[in-house]
């Protein structure tokens, strides 16, 4: 499943085709809203990618205000024994519900929502999917903690996703230096996986990019990236 998860025989509905085409183009570049803050500063575009063999997500959004971002996302997910797959594309809206800026820390609460289409290899039609979620993250220059919940709801589908991430930076760095972190994530996908996947990751943060490399308890390599401009 390394190729684009979207079918080439889309129904001739302009908006659907357009959404899928744009989302597929984005997937060439981009990730997951749970990595860090799921949007950038006002007037910025952020690309995000979260890739492993059972979970491939690519997304992008544009911050129309300091608190609101509009974007699109594509996601391929597969169950533990690799028999059940889900492919979806959606338009997304991300809202920064609340931010607390402290002298040496920041705490955020985010509301990511999306609407699009989902396909599965165990049903023939395309279904409308809604993906409301909630994310909270706390960060200092040395400590990071985040928790994320996202519901993937369509007809007869209830794949609620939840994750917790925590970690620390090995040392403080200057603004122009690359900062290394050790992050551990636990995530779970309801009704698609019975396992809680634990992934230790090395994170590298630079001004322009944000990269994570890890290997999970389910024997999957993991690559996450965020890029902002």
């Amino acid at each position, binding site marked *: 499943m390394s190729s684009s998860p979207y079918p080439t025989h889309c129904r001739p509905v302009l908006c659907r085709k357009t959404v899928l085409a744009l989302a597929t183009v984005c997937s060439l570049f981009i990730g997951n809203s749970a990595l860090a803050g799921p949007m950038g500063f006002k007037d910025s575009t952020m690309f995000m990618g979260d890739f492993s063999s059972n979970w491939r997500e690519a997304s992008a959004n544009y911050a129309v205000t300091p608190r609101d971002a509009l974007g699109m996302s594509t996601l391929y997910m597969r169950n533990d024994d690799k028999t059940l797959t889900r492919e979806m594309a959606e338009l997304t809206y991300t809202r920064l519900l609340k931010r607390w800026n*402290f002298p040496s820390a920041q705490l955020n609460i985010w509301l990511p929502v999306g609407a699009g289409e989902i396909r599965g290899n165990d049903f023939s039609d395309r279904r409308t999917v809604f993906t409301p979620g909630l994310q909270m993250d706390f960060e200092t220059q040395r400590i990071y903690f985040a928790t994320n919940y996202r519901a993937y709801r369509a007809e007869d589908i209830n794949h609620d996703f939840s994750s917790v991430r925590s970690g620390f930076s090995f040392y403080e760095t200057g603004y122009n230096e690359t900062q290394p972190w050790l992050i551990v994530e636990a995530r779970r996908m309801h009704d698609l996986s019975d396992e809680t996947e634990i992934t230790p990751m090395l994170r590298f943060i630079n001004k322009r990019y944000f990269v994570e490399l890890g290997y999970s308890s389910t024997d999957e390599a993991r690559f996450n990236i965020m890029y902002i401009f």
Partner: protein
Amino acid sequence: MKTLKLIMATTALSFFSLLASAEPTTKTTIFTVNGMVCAFCAQGIEKKLAKLPQTQAVYVSLEEKIVAVEARSGQAVDANLVTAEIKDAGYDVSKVETVDGSVAAIKQSMENKKTAENKK
């Protein structure tokens, strides 16, 4: 002869002193910023401030939690505008002060301080 030399020296000193005082002193406005913990997120501040027409140079220090903005020659930093831009980038300004010196000098001073602390 001695008196003449003294008069000439005094005149020269006065002249150079006048010249020096006529030169505009470089001023930099320093904003202390709350919530600035990550370079990836804080880059928005640098980008937005660098685009302002009166900006000569910008310096961001995560360690000191400051953003220093130097104005172009003959212009002044609009502290209210810069504060609004920093807020738009997602942060809060807790203190604003203007100091003599360029951004380059402040950056050098911060780096010297960091080097000295690392040696301890």
